């Protein structure tokens, strides 16, 4: 059972049926004139819009840009978050000095940094990265710190009785023991990174899928706009699945311990 390589390949029939029924209902209501908004297209119109986006090639360029921003921002957040989380996790003194600052910074809505980032970096990928990294950092940092601080004290004594160096204790005990918790942080952070990239593109850097939504809205092309939104949704699902799969391949034992988290 745990050797199944791709666990998500099974198709969820009843779940799919619900979606199809909802789409049909939507189609019927719009076509029958029950719902009347000037800019609410029917699902078939959205599909046609999706086809149009795919055929012009614009969609690929937009997706590639957003994907790049998400991956880069997430990677920076992950590297920084794990490093800081480990330091804070192993050192109660460091925690005493910095937890207050973290609790002040953490609830700040990252999007409030857009004007600041725009002033500093203009319409650029850097602006986007600033908006992504600051909020996406916290889930990684907090989960890493919590995971490390939660390592059972006995394990440190095991490290001591086998005369491990401090560095070996971190590499062989602390990180693996905290890994399930760190992985939860990585997943939360990735989801957040996509949301932030889209927002940053909507209000800051005018490129990518976030800007595509705004662009098609301003062009009064609601079918294209909805198609953009659907693409963003699919991107989110794919990113999460890709990460889950990666974790499954890299850390089979740890992903068994985090399943459902």
């Amino acid at each position: 059972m745990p050797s199944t390589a791709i666990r998500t390949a099974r198709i969820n029939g009843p779940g799919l049926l619900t979606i199809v029924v909802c789409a049909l209902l939507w189609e019927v209501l719009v076509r029958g004139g029950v719902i009347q908004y000037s800019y609410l297209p029917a699902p078939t119109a959205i599909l046609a819009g999706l086809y149009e986006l795919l055929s012009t090639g614009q969609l690929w360029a937009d997706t590639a840009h957003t994907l790049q921003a998400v991956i880069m921002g997430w990677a920076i957040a992950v590297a920084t978050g794990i490093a800081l989380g480990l330091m804070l996790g192993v050192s109660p003194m460091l925690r005493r000095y910095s937890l207050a600052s973290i609790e002040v910074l953490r609830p700040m809505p990252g999007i409030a940094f857009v004007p600041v980032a725009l002033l500093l970096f203009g319409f650029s990928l850097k602006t986007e990265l600033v908006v992504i990294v600051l909020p996406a950092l916290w889930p990684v940092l907090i989960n890493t710190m919590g995971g490390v601080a939660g390592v059972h004290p006995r394990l440190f004594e095991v490290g001591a009785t086998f005369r491990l160096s401090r560095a070996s204790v971190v590499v062989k005990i602390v990180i693996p023991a905290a890994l399930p918790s760190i992985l939860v942080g990585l997943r939360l952070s990735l989801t957040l990174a996509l949301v932030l990239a889209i927002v940053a593109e909507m209000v800051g850097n005018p490129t990518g899928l976030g800007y595509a939504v705004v662009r098609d809205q301003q062009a009064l092309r609601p079918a294209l706009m909805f198609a953009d939104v659907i693409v963003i949704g699919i991107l989110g699902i794919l990113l999460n699945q890709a990460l889950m799969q990666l974790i499954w391949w890299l850390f089979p034992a740890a992903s068994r311990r985090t399943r459902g988290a």
Partner: protein
Amino acid sequence: MSAPATAAEPRFDPSPAHDLLFSCSGVSVVLSHAVGDRKILDDITFDVHRGEVFTIVGPSGTGKTTLIRVLGGLTPAATGSVHINGRLLSGPPEEAVIVFQDYSHALLQWRTVARNVAFGLEGRMVQAEIDERVHSAVELVKLDKNANDYPWQLSGGMQQRVQIARALAVRPSVLLMDEPFAALDAMTKATLQDELHRVRDETGTSIIFVTHDIEEAVYLGDRIAVITGSPGRIARTFEVDLPKPRDQIATRQLPAFLEFRYAVHQAIGLDAHA
């Protein structure tokens, strides 16, 4: 781990007796609690020789676990000194490995049995030697069929064997065992007691074994130290001259076994607490 802060005695020159492994003299331990300092152990003096099974028995709260931690270099002694192979102990010695009671916390749950056993060897020898040592340690505790299982897939007794194998793999001179079988059922316990004797016979490893089970202390021990009171002191020591190899049924029925059991009971003074 820092050296004992107040090793007040002049540096003790141990006797060159070849088989002397551990030598504890006048050890006391004071632990700080929120409410203040508390003396856990007082004036503990004993020697342990090579290949010997030295059992330490006493009621709970007498500092038995603390004593194991002192011998393993995890807790410094407040006064007195511990020598291992003639060296003053300061921090975990390479000759000794502690086997903890709570195997579920002491094992690395993310590693297989084989990789748990390899834990103390990594980075200290070539991979081929690690593999060879892991193989023989795992075989010694009869877990060869489970080498690729994770600890959580094993029973409690098997998990405790993994911990014993992990300790044996580094080829220590002495195993420091802190009530290792206390959480196991009676049958598993009996099996592991016999395996421990077999391991000692095959490897010559000394064993310092803490327990609150009097019969276990008598059955396993070549010598027994009875530790009582708070702070804990050694009330008596016994030389156990029961025949070897010991046998779960025959040994336990010997009049001499029953006499030892009675004598240890008396030394602990159980009726006084009843």
